[in-house]
């Protein structure tokens, strides 16, 4: 997105469904419940939706399946599949589409029942041919190797990784919507079952059910809805690779580029961001993205997160809902970074509501650090 699109679209509804365990429901059921919740939030009906932005872990044509299930015939569909970053990426295409008049009501939606369906990460993708014979565990082996390299180059410690999980849990403990709200200490994380060195099971995101949805309209009518509008000030994507074996530098992600362009489009800098919502599939992600988005220098992410600095009452509020580590992680978490950022700005966050939030950042990660998408959202005051 360029600065020509700054503030041209606004989020007027958010919704979710099936957090935790959605017994008896399918992924598409949870997707539809999320859509209804977001449209209800916006005071709109499914029949108002003429732009659909959706992908799912099931079906080779998931956006068409979703439209069919919802009983709508959208005139514009974007089903681009970049993994978990897809839903942040749809903010760009939805804004472009709304601005061009190709649709009037854009619905971004996702749902999954991966927890109750199988308890494992559902994926339609096949293991890459030149990786499969070595049986990497998808996706943790990829993130474990990124963490190992970061520790080697910068002296990042397992304690610092653990502190990311501890901070996420501290936020989640205040969020009634979060799945894991029990106490969690650094020792708990370090002493948990090792699954892919140096990451224990507590360095890994949850496996839950859940769906999320976002409704966007053109900015010129954004004030005609029940909730305060949240404007898309800037969004940008950058792809790096698909397979972890093709990652050029295991300590640097494409968030450097996506962040730089999102900040430029929004006309803000990291120092202006009041709430940071990052896709924390693993504890190393939070460290990498804080560095690559410019909240600290490369290699300083470990020290940046240490000892509660990103926890409640810390230096920078990061993953204020508890993140994928403690709130919800139904296969792909990206949409929830946008929902939490928007709710912090609107003032109706489910957990700790920060004071007077005007600018928040949502960052999506897709694949194995493959696709990075950054969005910056703002209140009416930022226009």
């Amino acid at each position, binding site marked *: 997105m360029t600065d020509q699109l700054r503030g041209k679209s606004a989020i007027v509804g958010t919704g979710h469904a099936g957090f935790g365990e959605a017994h008896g429901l399918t992924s598409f059921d949870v997707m539809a419940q999320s859509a209804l919740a977001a449209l209800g939030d916006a005071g709109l009906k499914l029949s108002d939706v003429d732009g659909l932005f959706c992908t799912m872990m099931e079906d080779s044509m998931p956006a068409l399946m979703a439209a069919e299930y919802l009983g709508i015939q959208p005139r514009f569909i974007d089903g681009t599949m970049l993994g978990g970053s897809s839903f942040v990426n749809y903010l760009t295409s939805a804004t472009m589409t709304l601005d061009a008049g190709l649709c009037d009501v854009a619905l971004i939606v996702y749902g999954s029942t991966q927890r109750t369906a199988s308890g494992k990460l559902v994926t339609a993708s096949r293991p890459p041919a030149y990786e499969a*014979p070595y049986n990497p565990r998808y996706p943790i082996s990829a993130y474990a*190797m990124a963490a190992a390299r970061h520790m080697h180059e910068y002296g990042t410690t397992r304690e610092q990784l653990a502190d990311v999980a501890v901070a996420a849990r501290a936020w989640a403990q205040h969020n009634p919507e979060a799945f894991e709200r029990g106490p969690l200490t650094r020792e708990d994380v370090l002493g948990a079952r090792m699954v*892919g*060195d*140096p990451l224990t099971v507590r360095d890994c995101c949850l496996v839950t059910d859940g769906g999320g949805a976002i409704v966007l309209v053109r900015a010129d009518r954004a004030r005609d809805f029940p909730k305060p509008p949240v404007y898309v000030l800037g969004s940008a994507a950058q792809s790096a690779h698909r397979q972890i074996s093709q990652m050029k530098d*295991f300590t640097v992600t494409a968030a450097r580029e996506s962040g730089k362009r999102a900040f430029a489009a929004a006309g803000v800098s990291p120092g202006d961001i009041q709430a940071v919502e990052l896709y924390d599939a693993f504890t190393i992600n939070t460290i990498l993205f804080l560095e690559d988005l410019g909240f600290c220098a490369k290699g300083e992410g470990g020290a940046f997160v240490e000892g509660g600095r990103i926890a409640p009452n810390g230096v920078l509020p990061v993953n204020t809902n508890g993140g994928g580590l403690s709130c919800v992680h139904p296969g792909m978490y990206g949409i929830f970074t946008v929902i939490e950022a928007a709710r912090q700005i609107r003032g109706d966050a489910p957990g700790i509501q920060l004071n007077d939030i005007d600018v928040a950042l949502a960052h999506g990660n897709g694949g194995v650090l493959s696709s990075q998408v950054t969005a910056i959202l703002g209140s009416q005051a930022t226009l």
Partner: protein
Amino acid sequence: MPNTTGPDQIFQRALAEQEVLLPKCDDCGAFHFFPRVLCPHCHGTAISWQRASGKGRVHTTTVVRRKPERGGDYNVCMVELEEGVRFMSRVEGIAPGDVVIDMAVTAFVGETEDTPIVLFRPAEV
């Protein structure tokens, strides 16, 4: 095989003969991996094959934890060859947790489920 001219087929056929071949771009001179019909660096399409030196270093590594009854823990790592390309692989002959970054390793052709694959062992000093 009726047609063994594709990049993947050339690589696999050599592997079956215990040989690791690397694609090298005639235009820019850089190696790449995985094999493909163009050079990912300069996008040239003139690709030659060169026998790999087999010398490399562990770039990063992990231990996949697995229950003993399912075969136990094993190593997964990225090895950077002298030629500048990286392979996902594993280092054999030592405990998976003893594989460390920057360790010098040597390639050999091993087998998994009757298919030849590139593996590594610690380099002899």
